């Protein structure tokens, strides 16, 4: 070989990539990371800053005055008393319910399953709303039986919270119990183990990750929930309601932010622990696994049928009474039926419902792009930005909605900030919803991205396709059903969420879920119920539409309810 050649190529030449496409990829990754920084990290940073701001400059005095106060210790105690008891109860009840759906031969499984998921379509305080209509002072029970007991307070919060988290825990258990290797169960039986021993040695170990995941999800949802305790808590305050009272009631941002920080801590910890354990665990079966065959057992099926009916009755009662109340003339004094509450003869009329729908559509649109791109980048780009971006994408899971909303006020209610231009608009509410639910949306998209073989991208590249062409011609046409799922997810959550948006609404940008809270708060029970029913109606209609579109194109196995 000639010297010239040798100089030109070298024998052990170091590779320096000068591909323009790599630069473009890095640019796109930065473009996706930027809004996450602006709409998640920046507000959080502001909260942190504000919590240290005192009349005498930067200091810890806010923390001292909050953490040292007896009232605060009481709030922490209350929050944990509610959260731990609720979490324990929910995990226990939901596990048994999921077991009866997946591992027994009870009838009407699909119906039971559907009923369990109904509360997900309703504003996140519908449980407290329904519980009050049933068991409150003016509730159906007290009125009919002439008794006078009160559901306000601790047990009211616990019961409504259990109902609130139940579907989430159920979905996790159901997915985990649906996966089973029948060979293990056959081996267990052949070795002479009874059903109880099989349950302890085979079923329980294989669901331990679901057990952990649902515990952490329940914990996070309950400790950050603010709608239910607000409505049914009475004098029993928890951390989440206190943030609202400090900020909205007393305009005390400093104390609000300190409590927000306190709330952030256990949630962030729970999410971190959950992610840590999840990382080292793949919930997958070997390809030789045989599908589960449920053995016939009459007594077991009878017991589980009764259990499932009872659970479904509780859920239906709470949602059903809200629907019923919306049609009564004046609850609880005139129970004759009337449609007058659907005239929405309240301030702003029906506008909040339209606002919710706009926000839902905007969140769905923005969400698809944000989450779809983020998933594509982290799964396919193979640049050094993959893991930092992945981390940014799931950070919102650790941020309570109220804390994020509060951060938005502090960060963006400031004319010198460019985002101020959309402050108080529906657009900012939609953006807030997208980034509040970013982690879950991102995980839906990236899970589906993982299932699409990366050799499609590689085939496209070796055939001469740029990554833009690959996305347009290959990835998107394969991915779109999942993206419809992502859109439904963002739309649904935007319609029903309360906590993140509660700080962002103005009279003109009020959303329906907040209307329910405010109407409930001032005793307009019937109108509040009518709003809840409308929200459910819109969500169900949107779900059906999405289902219809997907079925039409032959994608029956895309799950829409998460």
């Amino acid at each position, binding site marked *: 070989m000639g010297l010239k050649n040798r100089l030109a*190529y070298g024998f052990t030449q170091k590779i320096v990539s000068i591909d323009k496409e790599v630069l473009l990829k890095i640019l796109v990754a930065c473009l996706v990371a930027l809004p996450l920084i602006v709409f998640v990290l920046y507000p959080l940073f502001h909260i942190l800053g504000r919590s240290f701001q005192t009349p005498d400059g930067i200091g810890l005095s806010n923390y001292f005055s909050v953490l040292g106060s007896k009232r605060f210790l009481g709030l922490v105690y209350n929050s944990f008393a509610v959260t731990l008891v609720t979490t324990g109860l929910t995990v226990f009840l939901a596990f048994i319910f999921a077991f009866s759906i997946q591992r027994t031969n009870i009838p009407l499984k699909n119906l039971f399953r559907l009923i369990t998921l109904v509360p997900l379509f309703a504003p996140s305080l519908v449980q407290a709303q329904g519980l009050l209509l049933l068991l409150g002072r003016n509730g159906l029970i007290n009125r009919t039986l002439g008794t006078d007991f009160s559901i306000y307070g601790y047990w009211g919060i616990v019961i409504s919270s259990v109902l609130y988290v139940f579907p989430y825990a159920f979905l996790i258990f159901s997915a985990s119990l649906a996966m089973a290797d029948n060979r293990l169960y056959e081996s267990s039986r052949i070795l002479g183990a009874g059903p109880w021993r099989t349950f302890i040695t085979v079923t329980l170990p294989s669901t331990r990750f679901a057990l952990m995941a649902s515990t952490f999800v329940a914990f996070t949802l309950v400790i950050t929930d603010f709608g239910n305790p607000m409505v049914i808590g009475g004098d029993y305050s928890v951390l989440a309601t206190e943030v609202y009272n400090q900020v909205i009631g007393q305009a005390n941002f400093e104390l609000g932010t300190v409590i927000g920080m306190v709330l952030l801590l256990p949630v962030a910890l729970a999410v971190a622990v959950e992610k840590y354990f999840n990382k080292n665990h793949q919930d997958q079966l070997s390809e030789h696994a045989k599908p589960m065959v449920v053995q016939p057992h009459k007594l077991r099926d009878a017991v589980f049928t009764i259990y499932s009916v009872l659970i479904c009755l509780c859920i239906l009662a709470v949602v059903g009474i809200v629907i019923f109340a919306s049609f009564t003339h004046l609850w609880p004094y005139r129970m004759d039926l009337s449609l007058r509450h659907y005239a929405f003869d309240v301030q702003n009329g029906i506008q909040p419902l339209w606002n919710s729908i706009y926000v839902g559509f905007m969140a769905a649109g923005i969400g698809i792009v944000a989450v779809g791109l983020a998933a594509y980048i982290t799964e396919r780009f193979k640049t050094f930005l993959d893991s930092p971006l992945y981390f940014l994408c799931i950070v919102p899971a650790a941020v309570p909605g109220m804390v994020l909303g509060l951060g938005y006020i502090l960060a963006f209610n400031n004319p010198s900030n460019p985002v101020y231009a959309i402050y108080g608009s529906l657009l900012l509410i939609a953006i807030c919803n997208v980034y509040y639910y970013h982690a879950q949306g991102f995980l839906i998209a990236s899970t589906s991205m993982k299932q699409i073989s990366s050799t499609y991208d590689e085939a496209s590249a070796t055939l*001469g396709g740029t990554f833009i062409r690959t996305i347009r011609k290959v990835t998107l046409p394969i991915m779109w059903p999942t993206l419809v799922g992502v859109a439904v997810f963002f739309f649904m959550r935007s319609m029903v969420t309360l906590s993140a948006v509660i700080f962002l609404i103005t009279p003109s940008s009020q959303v329906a879920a907040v209307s329910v809270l405010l109407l409930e708060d001032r005793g307009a029970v019937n109108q509040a119920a009518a709003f809840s029913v409308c929200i459910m109606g819109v969500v169900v209609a949107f779900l059906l539409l999405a289902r219809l579109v997907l079925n039409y194109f032959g994608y029956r196995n895309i799950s829409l309810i998460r």
Partner: protein
Amino acid sequence: MSLEIRNINKSFGRIKAVDNVSLAIDNGTLVCFLGPSGCGKTTLLRVISGLELPDSGAILVNSQNMSTVPARNRNFGMVFQSYSLFPNMTIAANVAYGLECRKWSRADISQRVNNMLSLVHLEDQSHKFPHQLSGGQQQRVALARALAPKPSVLLLDEPLSALDAKVREELREEIKTLQRNLNITTIMVTHDQEEALTMADRIMVMKDGKVMQTGSPMDIYHRPENPFVAQFIGRMNIVPAGIGIPFSSNGDSKGARAKILGIRPENIKLSDDPASNGELTGIVDRISRLGNLTRFKISLPNKNGLGPVTVVSEVQGSSHDLQVGTPKVLKINPETVRVLEWG
């Protein structure tokens, strides 16, 4: 096009997947990278394709350095083990994909697609979607798709391993014929020695990221250079030289003494004649009748403190009335014995 790879290195974390591999491939040659799973053959192919960047080294096509050229601009065709046909496109659209990337005119594309599909005998399937085709048909489409843009080099990543045995054999013939007719420089990765022996002009055997031996199929089979190649390609008895099997020294002893020898089972004949000088006698330990051939396991007496050694002999046919325990003389032509290790 001739292809040359020089001193390619590629590590994943601490694992060295490709360890300083060099190879020159002449125009129109089909080279097989052969080795067990995890030997680095697929990684090397991906480095050549541009899907993976090497840590160091160079890839040259007609003496032109391609190392920093991204995969999409290398003009290499690639066929994957999993077919990887785009599920959302028809067969015709799949084949047209690379041509659209190259901005061919619509008329040219349609003509080329027809030509390519008739080349792989699928002209009547062009409107179907991949999932409507059998595995063998899908892989032929993948082949047509890779060849359509007239690539300078064809890369095949275990193209036959996902297929049934019968289809595999058919497609093996078809790929070889196509490759020869188009005279296209081709690299095929496989772990199947039979595939490599029947299809390749040259074989590069790899293990742990390193090249164990490169040569023609018959070279590799008859003249393995080390115990790994000897055992990976076909069956070979590996015995210590001290046991006393006659051999004619092959190649570069460099004054060293032979340490390990290799003999193919078919080159050990069993005889009842008395042992002449240097011939070994062993006891038949086990007999396996495989129909077209019979396999004997022979144990040789302990010699020079090397412990008991067993060798395998294979004889055509199954009509041997040998009994276990019979002593036999081993007839071995020294020319068929390979020295695999010098010490």
